[in-house]
């Protein structure tokens, strides 16, 4: 995981360096907009000048997973789509975080049906769940602040022994 993997102690130099890294990291979260359905409209609204996600340093929505560190899953995830979402998540570089935006993404929502995954935590590690159908942009910004607090509390040694994920190969595509 780069430089911080070498940092293990609790000394002055290490903690101060961690603080700087975390400060830089949490104020420049690049979101991966995984806009699958209607929540994506509110996600776009959060990026516009009225709500202005740029105030939190997250205005750079990259449409390539390889440049992102926060995945905003905004919308209904079906079983067929779940493989695609997971593949995109696997392509994001570590460290990475996930926001499950809206009722459908968090629990299946009103789609209590055979084709919809009842909560993306069945195949993704979710950090923050956002309530609402769809959530207001303020609510998404609140989730982003939670993510920032979480990033601010990370320690470098948490990343050291992290297992490298195996890439899922999509069979049927």
């Amino acid at each position: 995981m780069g430089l911080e993997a070498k940092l293990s102690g609790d000394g002055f130099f290490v903690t101060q360096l961690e603080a700087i890294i975390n400060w830089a990291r949490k104020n420049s979260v690049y979101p991966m907009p995984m806009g699958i359905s209607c929540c994506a409209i509110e996600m776009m609204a959060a990026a516009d000048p009225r709500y202005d996600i740029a105030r939190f340093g997250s205005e750079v929505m990259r449409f390539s997973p390889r440049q992102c560190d926060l995945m905003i899953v905004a919308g209904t995830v079906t079983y067929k789509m779940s493989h695609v979402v997971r593949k995109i998540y696997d392509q994001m570089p570590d460290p990475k975080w996930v926001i499950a935006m809206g009722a459908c993404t968090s629990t299946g929502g009103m789609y209590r049906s055979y084709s919809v995954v009842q909560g993306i935590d069945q195949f993704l590690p979710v950090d923050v769940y956002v309530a609402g159908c769809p959530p207001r942009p303020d609510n998404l910004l609140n989730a982003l602040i939670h993510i920032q607090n979480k990033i601010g509390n990370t320690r470098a040694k948490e990343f050291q022994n992290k297992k490298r994920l195996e890439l899922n190969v999509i069979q049927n595509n």
Partner: protein
Amino acid sequence: MELKEIIIQKLNEHFPDAGFEFSEYINEFNIKLDKKFIQPVCKFLKEDSELEFLLCEDITAVDWARRKKRFTVVYHIFTLKHNYRLVLKCDVEEDDCNIDSVTSVWRTSNWQERECYDMYGIKFNNHPDMRRIYMPEDFEYYPLRKEFPLMGIPGSLSLPKK
């Protein structure tokens, strides 16, 4: 003469054995016919210069669960010339679960028939590409049949590894 009467007259004249049953429901004219005649009747309705049913709006099916002829395949077709909509219905038995495709008449019916196959398991003969359209191709069930549970069958659809 009203368009409805013209249709009845023409169909009876050209297809005396098709077993037509005419009825009207909520301002829509319904024609029930034997499934063997669906392709020639559709071809006739489209190509007849007085009728010109150029638009195949929808192909779907109904699962009656307990009836002897379990499924009914429903065709909604439309003529731009007269601004008139027609419903064709064919009964299909569960043991003999197939019907002739009308892709040779309307090319749009390709995907509509695939959807019908995906959801009900009714095979369309002479269809160029008879595959599932929504569900994964290795899925073994037909979701809109009455015996299929709403929440699906556990384990039948795969999820990625966590």
